[in-house]
């Protein structure tokens, strides 16, 4: 039988105030096994929870343009990323964001796009979440990943596109004293560049798709919630 491993009870337990008269970690007090187990569990749970956050949100918009040729595959490579809202597309560069492996599990957190969307009658609306390396274009995507979700519902409905695997890029972060320009701290961190887009198979401004509240956020890797 394999060894059972427990790193956290997945909740935070308050301990007495550090340095206070009830602090069991103060000098000349024996540290119990339970005390150190709580410390380890708390910090592990904290690292997991603190690593998850909302990365980007937008109010959404209306659009009617379909994917370019090849769009039947629902591949956002064919989204009209270079066009603007006035052209009938919804495409956004959602920025570069720090994403770290999830806690002590070292699993890749899921990146999820959730939004509300509706399609014009007889047509399909799709939304896409694309990850690239910083500086890369979603069109010239050589190392990236994407997830899409579609609906034909004419009533507004929730769409979810989730990426479980994607490339992490490395950036150097440097914090300086602004007066002396001296480096105070520096190090490597992992990031992703995010792109969000939507398309509508009507291809006509007479049949608009709608998208509201697109939000991109981090979730634990499977099977955690």
């Amino acid at each position, binding site marked *: 039988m394999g060894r059972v491993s427990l790193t956290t009870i997945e909740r935070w337990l308050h301990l007495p105030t550090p340095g206070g008269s009830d602090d069991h970690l103060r000098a000349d007090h024996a540290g119990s096994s339970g005390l150190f187990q709580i*410390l380890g569990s708390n910090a592990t749970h904290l690292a997991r929870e603190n690593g998850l956050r909302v990365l980007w949100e937008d109010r959404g918009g209306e659009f009617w343009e379909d994917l370019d040729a090849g769009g039947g595959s629902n591949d956002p490579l064919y989204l009209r990323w270079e066009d*603007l809202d006035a052209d009938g597309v919804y495409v956004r560069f959602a920025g570069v964001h720090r994403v770290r492996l999830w806690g002590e599990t070292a699993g890749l957190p899921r990146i999820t796009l959730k939004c509300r969307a509706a399609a014009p009658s007889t047509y399909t609306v799709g939304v896409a979440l694309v990850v690239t390396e910083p500086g890369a274009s979603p069109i010239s995507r050589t190392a990236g990943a994407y997830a899409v979700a579609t609906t034909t519902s004419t009533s507004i409905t929730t769409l979810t596109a989730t990426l479980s695997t994607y490339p992490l890029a490395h950036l150097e972060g440097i914090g300086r004293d602004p007066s002396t320009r001296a480096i105070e701290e520096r190090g490597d961190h992992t990031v992703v560049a995010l792109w969000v887009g939507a398309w509508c198979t009507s291809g006509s401004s007479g049949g608009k798709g*709608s998208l509201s509240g697109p939000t991109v956020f981090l979730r634990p890797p499977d099977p955690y919630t």
Partner: protein
Amino acid sequence: MSTEPRILFTPRVDAQAYASGVTARAHHAAVLANLANDATGGHPGQRFGIGQRTAGGTYHWFYRRTAVAKHLVLRATVATTGGSYTAGHGAVLTLTVTDGTNTVSTTPTIPPGLDGGDTWQPINTTALRTETFAHYEWTMSLDALAATLTASDNWRVKLVATVGATAFLESFQAEELPRWLVDTADSYGQIPTDYLPRGVIRDGATGLQRIWATARVGYTDALRTYHAQVRPEADPWSSTSTAAYEPLGGDIESGTTPITYVCRPRRMRGTTRCKVRWRLRYRTVGMSSVSHTASVQLLTGHASSPFAVTLADTAGTWTDTAAQTAYLITDGTDRLDTISFLAKTQSGTLEVSSRWVADDPD
């Protein structure tokens, strides 16, 4: 003061390592110190930004200064509009930060380049628009800001973006940088090598107390921003509804349903709720009586929702609300909750340009 650099990783600490009867060893404390350092300084979660490209405008975000982060990284992306590009067009970015009393607006505390003195231009300007994206990055010292912003930890960041007619500010995003240094001069951070094999563990800054103090700062001060939506002050969300709460103009999903935004609240002590604070930047215009008020509701999945704030007449002056308390749920489907807003006013027009929801752990 002692410092030690660290890389970003989360050590695995098995509960069995601390089982009764197991001999206590130096690495037990050292690994715990590494873990607490990472849990607190390795994952700062506050951020703000513009959701969509802009041809220019004035934007405001709220930010809460805490003990955790030392630097913000700010990233801007500038592109062409896709048509004929006029040489020299780009984005001039002017950043200021205030605590409501004091304001920082000059370099070097404001990073050179974000003081309005440069035009940040796209690249490859004859190429496809997505290939004209030029990415710029700055870091800003929070300690340097705090030296002036002494009146409050509740800060507001203002960005004035002036953009040439053939360019866009495609994106502007900011997030806290993680810590790559353990510094005993900070209110948290334990140097793992304080615990040496066969060494004596002393009380104080090199003792075991500091491990718990470090993790506790991660609980109280490592905050997540759940919602940081802004609109330019020249084109804010607005409400003239005098009868019932309705979605703000510009924030409507359909009919009388507001746009909802999803978040995954941090689940710490309890299993059902996450305490948050929220703020707005608003003004009232054209109220028929100085005693009239407006109201905004924050709607979440919590049983006490909606959470309301009453807004006094400001007679056209943009004003920041005090931090309000609300709760998100942590036991929703997939542990997610939603955020949305409704508003009404007794007269005139209520305008809102910034909305912020962030952790406020209890």
